[in-house]
């Protein structure tokens, strides 16, 4: 987890940094850490202001607000990841893998 955070906090604002931020937000959601998820989705937006994944992620956490499609990029790199089928089991496995990652 800490390794992901280190990557997401990188100063280069590269795509990899962005993806690390979204992934860290997803890990927080999987652990029902809502404030943590908001923090890391906002970090992703800081790196990539037109992030569809971060905008939708935040919309899912705060559904009172409208979802503005005008501001999102339909070419968001996040969605170019290798495909996965998001089941509860896969979420759990991913969460465990992230938790098991140790900083070098």
């Amino acid at each position: 987890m800490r390794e992901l955070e280190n990557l997401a906090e990188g100063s280069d604002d590269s795509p990899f940094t962005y993806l690390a931020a979204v992934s860290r937000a997803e890990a927080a959601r999987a652990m029902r850490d809502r404030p943590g998820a908001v923090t890391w989705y906002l970090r992703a937006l800081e790196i990539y202001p037109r992030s569809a994944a971060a905008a939708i992620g935040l919309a899912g956490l705060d559904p009172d607000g409208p979802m503005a499609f005008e501001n999102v990029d339909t070419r968001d790199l996040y969605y170019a990841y290798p495909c996965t089928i998001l089941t509860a089991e896969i979420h759990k496995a991913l969460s465990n893998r992230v938790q098991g990652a140790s900083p070098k």
Partner: protein
Amino acid sequence: MKLATGVVVLTAVAALTAGQQPQFRTSVARVRLDVRVADANGPVRGLTRDDFVVEDNSFRQAINIEEAADAPLDLVLVAQPIESVSYISPEQSTRVTAGLSAFLQQITDRDRLAALLAGAPPSRLRAFEYGPPPFDVRAFSGGIYAAPFDAIVAALGQFDRSERARALVVFTNGADFRSTTSFEGVAELTRRLGPAFVLVGTPVTIRETARVKSATRSGSVTRDSGLMAEAGISGEVFPATLKILADRTGGITVNLADGEPGQIIADMFIWLRTRYTITYEPPAGKGWHKVKITVNRKGATVRAREGYFVD
């Protein structure tokens, strides 16, 4: 993992009073529930408030009721790219294409429609506007990847504060390639006063071979033979996850493989347009409010959301 092709229709079962933000705000001034009553002959009409018993956290509520037989709809349509259906289940794409085309043809000038393509990432084809869309089913083309869970979240954000009958219709096979929103995240949203989910789909075909113990039976006595045998198990089931969403929110499941897709979708629109709107002052208390609605009409079933959550 192979999942069924389906259509999830998310109907807005409960809206809030005018002046509040859209349908998910959880400080509830008035509970408003769309309720659909049907028997073997179809929708049951002509019921009055005396025919209903509505309990909120086991306390009977004083209700107001309004019946609509041909209600105009506010619809948000979400459909994953046809190619993403074909990618997983080539045999189902024909039914989905026909169902989607039939859906678009059911839109009248009285209806408002927004449409999203549930690709990866989702994109919006049309904001809320009255009348049939200027595009046809070919607009739902966009690659083999789909993110329906993210599209559902984005679609819920399209509704405004209208108190018209609302529905979120999602054509999906339940497979999600790359959503940042999990199924659990979508399920959590169903706890809010918001849309009901109606699943229309083609069920998954399950074929398994299991090793089972064999037994002998003599009269009412069954004895374990001690031998193992292989048994073939097959059947068709809806994706359990999507059915959960439908049941929790008072929606329905409709099988696109049950007949001609155009007729199935037409029947779905009759169901959507025929409803009772029940309103009542909510009892105090945070947390989950379990709602139970019964009707004194023999053989009739009631579809309404199971409850709502107040923060």
